[in-house]
């Protein structure tokens, strides 16, 4: 187990700033995901740690020692790539043994360790198969076993599941987390899939334009986004431009409704324009009975679309303050139809206000 620190990493490709003085501390044994859209610099940061890219400035410290002077083959880091990277001319076992063979480990030790690792990823029966005889998910499992063969200081995963189908992706991400916890290995995981990042990580770092917008536990990042980018990128969100009515009372006006925000920090002044963020699962809809207009909500509206997503159903409502999206349990949503008149309410404490 080793800690990893990225200090002031700066990297430009031509005129494009890939990393903008990025700082990140990963504790020993921690699983940190770098989450962000394409081009945000997450893969570049990972490749700087691996030794495949060299930053223009900054440091990469592993257990306090700068590793930037070391070539990739001397850094003792295990990496799983986005593309299938198994050596086509070697069996699964030979792939896993590869790094041990380079270090001239005895044949019996190599073989034993490789089989243990293949067992760990559930592929001991496929040890003699060539990559072309394995499915995509199996290939990535072998790649994971191969990356772990030399007990690396850090495990680097560069969108390893993005080429797999949805079901395998879910299975494999859970396995990655299980193995990481079992081995206690420090892990940096790059992904653009927020669900993946939130489900497996100890902490998630959300990146945008080469900088970390926010880092925190998955729950913190999801429920307390610090920037509008994080609020919009992580999960689905309703946005509304509102005005601060009373800074001391933490109240804002949203259309006809006056809302009190249950937030500790409220650094705004009376009359400030702020953006209100609200998760769809925090929106409740009330349905009028026997053709009556529903009451009790913040405002009324009409259902414009209903999208069945399995356990939840996403309902879009046109209101006087603009469209509002609500996630209801699918059982609840059965009562709704297009054009149903509904009242819209929000859960107390669910509203987040960020500077516009």
């Amino acid at each position, binding site marked *: 187990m080793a800690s990893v620190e990225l200090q002031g990493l700066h990297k430009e490709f031509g005129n494009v700033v890939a990393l903008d003085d990025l700082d990140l501390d990963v504790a020993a044994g921690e699983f940190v995901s770098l989450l962000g859209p394409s081009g945000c610099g997450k893969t570049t940061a990972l490749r700087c740690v*691996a*030794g*495949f890219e060299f930053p223009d400035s900054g440091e990469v410290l592993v257990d306090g020692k700068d590793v930037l002077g070391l*070539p*990739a*083959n*001397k850094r*003792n*880091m*295990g*990496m799983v*790539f986005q*593309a*299938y*990277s*198994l*050596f*086509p*001319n070697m069996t699964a076992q030979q792939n896993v043994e*590869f*790094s041990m063979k*380079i*270090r001239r480990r005895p044949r019996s030790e190599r073989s034993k360790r490789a089989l243990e690792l293949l067992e760990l990823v559930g592929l001991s029966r496929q040890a003699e198969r*060539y990559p*072309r005889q394995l499915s995509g998910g199996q290939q990535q499992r072998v*790649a994971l076993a*191969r*990356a772990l*063969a*030399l007990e690396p200081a850090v495990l680097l995963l560069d969108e390893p599941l993005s080429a797999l189908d949805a079901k395998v992706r879910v299975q494999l991400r859970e396995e990655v987390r299980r193995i990481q916890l079992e081995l206690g290995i420090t892990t940096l995981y790059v992904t653009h899939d927020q669900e993946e990042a939130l489900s497996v990580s100890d902490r998630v770092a959300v990146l945008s334009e080469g900088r970390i917008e926010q880092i925190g536990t998955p729950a913190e990042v999801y429920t307390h986004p610090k920037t509008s980018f994080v609020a919009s990128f992580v999960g689905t969100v309703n946005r509304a431009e509102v005005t601060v009515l009373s800074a001391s009372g933490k109240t804002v006006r949203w259309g006809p409704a006056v809302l009190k925000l249950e937030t500790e920090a409220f650094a705004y002044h009376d009359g400030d324009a702020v953006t209100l963020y609200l998760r769809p699962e925090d929106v409740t809809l009330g349905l009028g009975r026997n053709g009556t207009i529903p009451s009790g909500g913040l405002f009324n509206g009409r259902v414009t679309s209903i999208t069945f997503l399995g356990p939840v159903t996403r309902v879009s409502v046109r209101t006087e303050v603009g469209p509002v999206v609500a996630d209801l349990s699918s059982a609840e949503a059965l009562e709704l139809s297009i054009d149903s008149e509904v009242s819209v309410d929000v859960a107390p404490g669910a509203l987040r206000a960020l500077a516009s």
Partner: protein
Amino acid sequence: MAAIAVPTSNKRRRGGHGRLQLWHVFWIIVAVLYFVVPLYSLLQFSFEGSVNHHSAGFHWFLTVFDDPQFRSSFWLSVQIALETVLVSNLLLVPTAFWIHLKLPKLRPVMDFVSILPFVVPPIVLIVGLVPFLQPFTFIYSRPEVLPLIYVVFALPFLYRSLDAGLRAIDLKTLSEASANLGSSTLGTLVRVVLPNLRQSIISGSLLTVAIGMGEFTISSLLSFNTFPVYIFNIGQSQAYEAAALSVISLLLIWGIMIGLFLLGRGGRTSIALGATR
């Protein structure tokens, strides 16, 4: 419901199909005759003539085998062909690897350079090379100079074969994976890249062998008695022996090619000849 097209007349369809088959067969026969008739004539000629009022049989072949010049020229050509394969691969495999991995912008330049030997006639090449090579007397006067020249002729075949092989694998990812696992660049080339380029190297080398064994112009101009030069000299005065030599030459080259091809197929990778996966 989608409409299904049904042939209006089975008879017409069958008739049209039959006519096409006839043309197929006709052109195949023409193509086969074009290549087979000269070979058959050569083979027949090599068995013709009479010796002591008996059919020649294998007489011309045996005569040729008995000629010490045959053996020396043949082994010289084999040696030159193998040296050409060795030098070409030593020069081009790392070059192609580096260009693909580190300098992909140079690929179009290499593509252009690699077709130049097709458009530059051998005589032009040798006229340009002689003044350059002459001061290096230790090599210029020895047949080992030929592989150094033949490398140029092998360039289009070997480089293009390697290029196709390298395009067929994800070289960047494989190289990075190898480095991440502790391998040096040379180790990556030897352990990862070469086994996956096996078919490309073999198919390029096959053509290089054919060049090394069959090149006449340059070896003749530089006065080396290689196998093609020997065949030409024999052909000036001994037509039957020349025919037998041509047959032997063809069989040997085919044998070498089949051997190398089978060697390549014996590999565990599924990369097909021409290096496409």
